[in-house]
Structure formats: structure tokens, C-alpha cells
């Protein structure tokens, strides 16, 4: 595995996480407005929203490292007519741009709430399309390990799982570093919002984990029984050479998104457990991030091409 593939791992993980986080933020914000009004909802989510931008920019920069000729990178969108890679890049850039516009508007409270909501929804759609395009990039007939429904499932699961956990971690951080200090008075409203969001996040994480835990092993089993030698060889790599990493990835995801989130749910239901709650939210995010990187590593390392 060389720099090129590491750049792909980081790029795909970060953009997926960004899209996931954006969507999750939108949903949380929607409910938070209903519960506590626009201002409190904004206080909960605006800083998290602003964090997405740098992540995306970083991802795009890292993606350049996988190009042999980065000076030509602007040409990458030349073939949207037939290339999913072009579409992916275009969607990534558009998502970054529209997301940035939205973020600025939201931060500065420019435009009406509805206008912003429409732009946010647009960005979200672009983002989801980006994740979809990214998964389509790997739908190559020559790559049996990628060319299955498992790839889009995995990419969306990664996006949403990392998204929810990232948002959870961001909320906890936002609360600890800003909200509590700025206006202790409103802490209780924010605290309620936070507890509610984290409970919801914990539930979502468990569900998404379930998707991953079902999809990933099924995928390997499917490949192992594959029609082509390349498919079987991929499965053999996933079991064999990369089996340990594959297993570790599932274990970490299980602990992070399963075990920790259960405790997270518990601590978010009980008052006065802010500390534990925060630690759990960070830890779940960190573990799952590592798990997803490992998973993506195996994704790139264990694909065997049909043919020569």
C-alpha cells in the first residue's frame, strides 16, 4: 500500500464523514428547532457545522496526493457524462461549495430561515449524491470485491455512522468548551438538547452498526462463493492476509458503536453523568473512526482484479 492508497482512504473516509455529519446535523437541528427554538438549535449545531468545512477542504487536498499529475486536477470533472469519478469529484466540490455558502449564511444568519433550509437541503442532497457517486466509482466489472451492492451500503453506513458519532463528539465538545462558559444560564436548555441528541445518536449508531455487521461478513461470504477466481482471491485475502485487520475493524466498530453507545445512551438518560457521557461520545467516535479506516484499508488492499 503506497501513499496513493492512503490518500484515497483518508479522502473517502473524511468526505463520507462530512456528508454524514452534515445530514445528521440537519436532522438534529430540525428537531432541536421544534423543541427549543431556532436560537438554541443554532447554538447546539453551528460550531459543529463550521467544523465540517475544514474537514472537507483537508479531504480534497489529501485527494490530490493520489494523482500522478495534480496540476491537471481541474480536468477531473471533464467527463461527467460517463465517469462516476468525475461525478464524484464534481459532487465533492459542489458539496463543499454549497455547504460553505450555507455555513456562512447560517453563521451570519444571512437570508431567511427557509432559504437557508432550502440551501442546506440542497447541500445534503449533493452530499448524498457524492457518497452515491463515490460508491459507483467502485462498481467496476473488473473488480468483484467492489462491484456489489455492499459498496454503496458500506459507504452510506460509514457516512452516517461516522456522521452521527462525529456530531455526537462535536456536540459534547461544543457544550464543554463554549456553551457552559459563555452562558451558564442557558446550560440547562442546551443540556437537555444535548442529552436528547446523544440518546438519538446512540440509537442511530447501533442501528448503523447492525447494518455494517451484517453487510461486511455477508460480502466476504458472497465473494468466497464467487463465480470468478478474482472474487475468491479477494475473499481469501480478506480472511487470510488481511483477516486480522478485518476482524479488528469489526471488533472496534462493535465496541465503539455498540458497547460504548449503549453506555452513552444510559449516561445520556441519567442526569449528572456529563463527564462519562462526554468520554463515551469521544471514545465511540475515535474507535469507529479507526475501525472505518481499517475497513477502508482492507477495501483497497484486498481487491483482486479480473483478468491480467
Amino acid at each position: 500500500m503506497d501513499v496513493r492508497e492512503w490518500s484515497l482512504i483518508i479522502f473517502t473516509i473524511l468526505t463520507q464523514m462530512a456528508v454524514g455529519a452534515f445530514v445528521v446535523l440537519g436532522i438534529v437541528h430540525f428537531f432541536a428547532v421544534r423543541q427549543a427554538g431556532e436560537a438554541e438549535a443554532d447554538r447546539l449545531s453551528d460550531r459543529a457545522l463550521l467544523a465540517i468545512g475544514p474537514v472537507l477542504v483537508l479531504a480534497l487536498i489529501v485527494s490530490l496526493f493520489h494523482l500522478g499529475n495534480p496540476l491537471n486536477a481541474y480536468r477531473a470533472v471533464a467527463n461527467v457524462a460517463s465517469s462516476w469519478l468525475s461525478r464524484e469529484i464534481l459532487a465533492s466540490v459542489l458539496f463543499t461549495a454549497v455547504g460553505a455558502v450555507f455555513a456562512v449564511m447560517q453563521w451570519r444568519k444571512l437570508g431567511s430561515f427557509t432559504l437557508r433550509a432550502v440551501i442546506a437541503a440542497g447541500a445534503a442532497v449533493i452530499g448524498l449524491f457524492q457518497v452515491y457517486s463515490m460508491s459507483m466509482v467502485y462498481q467496476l466489472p473488473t473488480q468483484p470485491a467492489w462491484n456489489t451492492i455492499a459498496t454503496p451500503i458500506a459507504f452510506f453506513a460509514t457516512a452516517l455512522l461516522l456522521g452521527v458519532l462525529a456530531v455526537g463528539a462535536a456536540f459534547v465538545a461544543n457544550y464543554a468548551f463554549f456553551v457552559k462558559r459563555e452562558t451558564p444560564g442557558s446550560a440547562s436548555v442546551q443540556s437537555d438538547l444535548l442529552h436528547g441528541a446523544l440518546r438519538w445518536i446512540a440509537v442511530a449508531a447501533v442501528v448503523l452498526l447492525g447494518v455494517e455487521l451484517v453487510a461486511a461478513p455477508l460480502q466476504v461470504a458472497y465473494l468466497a462463493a464467487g463465480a470468478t477466481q478474482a472474487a475468491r482471491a479477494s475473499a481469501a485475502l480478506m480472511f487470510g492476509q488481511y483477516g486480522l485487520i478485518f476482524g479488528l475493524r469489526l471488533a472496534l466498530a462493535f465496541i465503539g458503536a455498540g458497547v460504548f453507545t449503549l453506555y452513552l445512551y444510559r449516561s445520556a438518560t441519567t442526569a449528572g453523568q456529563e463527564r462519562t457521557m462526554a468520554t463515551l461520545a469521544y471514545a465511540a467516535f475515535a474507535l469507529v473512526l479507526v475501525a472505518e479506516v481499517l475497513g477502508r484499508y482492507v477495501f483497497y488492499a484486498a481487491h483482486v482484479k479480473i483478468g491480467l
Partner: protein
Amino acid sequence: MAKQLGFYMDASACTACKACAIACKDKNNLPVGINWRKVHEYGGGSWVAHPAHPDMLIPSSVFLYSLSVACMHCQDAPCVEVCPAGAMSKNADGVVLIDADKCIGCRYCEWACPYGAPQFDQAAGVMTKCNMCTDLVAQGQNPACVDACPMRALEFGELADLRARHGVLNAIEPLPSAEITQPALVVTPHKHAQPSGRGTGHVLALPEEGYHGRS
């Protein structure tokens, strides 16, 4: 049907001498690590105890043959489809070409091509590939590889003509199924040739030495 140039490969006559591969390197000044034409050896079989003399080993269906493979200038070329930069295109003769000025070096075509045709030039950062010696062909000559073959196992021409002369077979092991890309190729099978995807043998090569490297 639009004009489509293609290659003919006589696997029954190929000796894996690689004169074609080196002729290509010479014609195109390709450094070590970049091989637009490669020769793949495919073989199998085993040694078993002699039924009447259990202490003697005899070969059991030991076989070997080779294929000289460059870009297939596929009719259904996934490389062209997937290239984000539009750097890959099919010209009027059906030849698939890379415009290096457009290439961003993403190596996506490499993943999409089942023939290992796109060869990344690390130093230049761009993809390179067999261009069917368009310059020679324009002058009415044959591609360098074709004229190099001491066994006359390679030919080049309009796919329709090649098919008329040599039949329509376009895939044997270790080539992938022709359905993936519709290669502009006609093969005469070796007598031990095995059908694509269903062979009992394996590609014979060191994993890293030579140019069959996986890295």
C-alpha cells in the same frame, strides 16, 4: 459497424520469446516498469505416481502456452468510460488513445481495464498505453510488435478482416471473459488452451521479478 482495428494472436505458435514486448519498448522508449505489451505464460498439470511403477513420477497433463497481450482497443472500453479527465478516447479507427496532456494520473483506468493495458509512468505522473503504433500505421506500416514476431504469431488489421481470416475466438485463459470489454482481438487457441475463467492452470511468473509485478 464503425471501423475497428484489432490484433490477432496465434497462441498455438507463441514461444514467449518476448521479441514483441521488447520491440514495443524500443519503439516507444519505455523504461523498466512500463510494458505496453506483455507476454503471459499460462500452465498447469502435475506429476503423479506411475500406475505400474509407483516409485516413478510421470507428468499428468502438464501444459503450457503463452499469450502476447497489449491494449485490446476494446469496443466497449471501460477505460474510456471511467476516465474522469476525458484523457482516454477512441479514435476513428477504433484505437483507444490516451492524451497525456489531459491525464490527471488518477489510475482509475488501471482498475477498470481487465488486460493490464494502462501502464502508469511514475516519473511523468501520467498513464501510458499501447497506441497501436498509430504513427507507423498512418505510414502504411505494421505496428512494431507485429513485425517483430519470429513466429509470425501476431497480426494487426481491421477486426472484421481478422475475424474473417482467423475466426471469432477472443478469450482463453488467462484472458478475462470478452464480455467485459469486447476486445478487438482474435485468438487462435493453443491446443491446450482453456476457456476463460475456467482454467485448471495458473499464470507462471514471479510475483515481483520481471514485469508481472502486482505492485
